[in-house]
């Protein structure tokens, strides 16, 4: 395989290796928190923060951490940053923290983050790891934002809490219930596959 350029390391997470649409990782928080655009955005940014910080540390210490206990070490590092993010959200944006509930602490076991540590940060330098983490994080955030926007607009008739639909629009409650998450995500993955197949052909 050809060595990727720095730009390519960043861009790949946005579409070609998008963590949700292509790698199908981190689906649990993706499905659970995307009832409103605000939640989706906050979840994405919190995960990006954890991804960036953990990637930096894991890449920095990749030669020091013994192979046998690497997963344990990654989990401690990830858990530390997740707790930091959780406490900061609770202290400064209590409303978002309340609506995301247990899903912030659950970033610890989000497989996107552990996956990037294992597959990338533990094998690459700091610069590349940070670019990779930023790309993956933004890819995750963008996907959540689109998914949660569709669900909020159709399910509540609002977007970031603002009324966006016409007056007589009756919200489709199913969209903010769990089935709505599966339906929307399924359509988005189908769309991504369709575009990718056409590009290849």
């Amino acid at each position: 395989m050809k060595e990727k350029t720095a730009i390519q390391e960043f861009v790949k997470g946005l579409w070609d290796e998008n963590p949700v649409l292509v790698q199908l990782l981190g689906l649990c928080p993706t499905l659970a928190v995307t009832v409103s655009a605000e939640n989706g955005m906050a979840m994405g940014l919190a995960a990006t923060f954890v991804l960036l910080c953990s990637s930096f540390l894991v890449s920095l210490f990749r030669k020091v951490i013994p192979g046998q206990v690497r997963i344990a070490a990654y989990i401690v590092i990830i858990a530390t940053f997740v707790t930091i993010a959780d406490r900061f959200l609770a202290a400064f944006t209590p409303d978002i923290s309340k609506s995301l509930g247990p899903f912030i602490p659950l970033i610890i076991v989000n497989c996107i983050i552990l996956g990037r540590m294992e597959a990338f940060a533990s094998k690459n330098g700091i610069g590349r790891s940070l670019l990779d983490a930023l790309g993956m994080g933004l890819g995750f955030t963008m996907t959540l934002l689109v998914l949660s926007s569709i669900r909020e607009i159709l399910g509540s008739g609002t977007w970031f809490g603002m009324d966006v639909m016409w007056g007589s629009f009756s919200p489709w409650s199913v969209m903010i219930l769990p089935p709505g998450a599966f339906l929307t995500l399924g359509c988005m993955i189908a769309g991504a596959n369709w575009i990718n197949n056409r590009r290849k052909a």
Partner: protein
Amino acid sequence: MSNTAKIIIVLTLITVISGAVLAVLDNYTKPRIEAYKNKVKNEAVYEVLPQNVKVKTIVRSVMENDKTVEYTFYEASIKNEVVAYAFQVAGGGFQSELVLMVSVKPDFSEIINAKILAQVETPGLGTRIENDPSNKENPAWFIDQFKGLKANPEITYIKNVKPSKDTEIQAITGATISSAAIVRILNAEIKKAKAVLLSNGVAENNEPNKEDILAVLPENAEIQKIEKNGQVLYSASKGKDILAYAIPAACKGYQSEISLMIGVKADFSEILGVKVISQSETPGWGTKIVNDPANENNPCWFIDQFKGVKINSDISFVLNKKPENKSGVQAITGATISSAAVVDIINTSIKEAKALLNK
């Protein structure tokens, strides 16, 4: 350096540094998080109380199930005359705990206002108890119904039509369980708060329904209430002989309070019957203690097992098989905690009742 030593040192270092960072962070964020919680609570207190009142905090400690529980009341007064009490109440809803701040008239006969502090019910359905987008004029219409609602003798709800009585509210279609839960919580907690506040720290037992008492006692017996040391029992007698006792009991199940009525033979040798008066355990799991759809012949097989159980020693429970002796019952797979809580409270209540009657 050997590999083992390296593993230990690296992992120890990572965890120690992580712990230190989090300790510093906790110190920094804790006051803010606490302050926010207090602010939400205080705002709610003032929101449910009439305007321009002086608020005094009253804390009462009550012994409940061998534990001291503190109740906080906010007393609102205008020129030394008490005009309202506000307090926080909580209970199980459809899938989450519902926490409300409620204010009542000083005699606890009427609700002045109620506000939901916390709920994580089903989005779009149960959440309508707080915010119903289908009612454009007033999304909070449901909870606003409690303003000025009479709470005596008890609040009731009605479906699909406008309420006709001054103690009645309309439940939300599609969120009946959450609506009913609020009514249930308010009924129970207002009575309890009244007892705690007005009796100077001694909780009165809520009077159970007559039907619930009769359900666990022999038929056609004469029921008499026995009150001793603040505990209440019911005896069933025919002529001069006492045949049986009914013991009210309540305990914490897996996620809600389970309240029961236990009927025992007068010589405390055997259980006559047990009835679950109220519970809101996890639907489909803990609720199997009263209704297990998997057993088609007898959905309440679990509670029925207690009929005729010998109580010379503690009742024990076994998992996944039939009980071996006359003082054992089978716990429900998937509802072990709720099952164990029921067995536990039956054991303790019977012992307490025995001691109370010197048997």
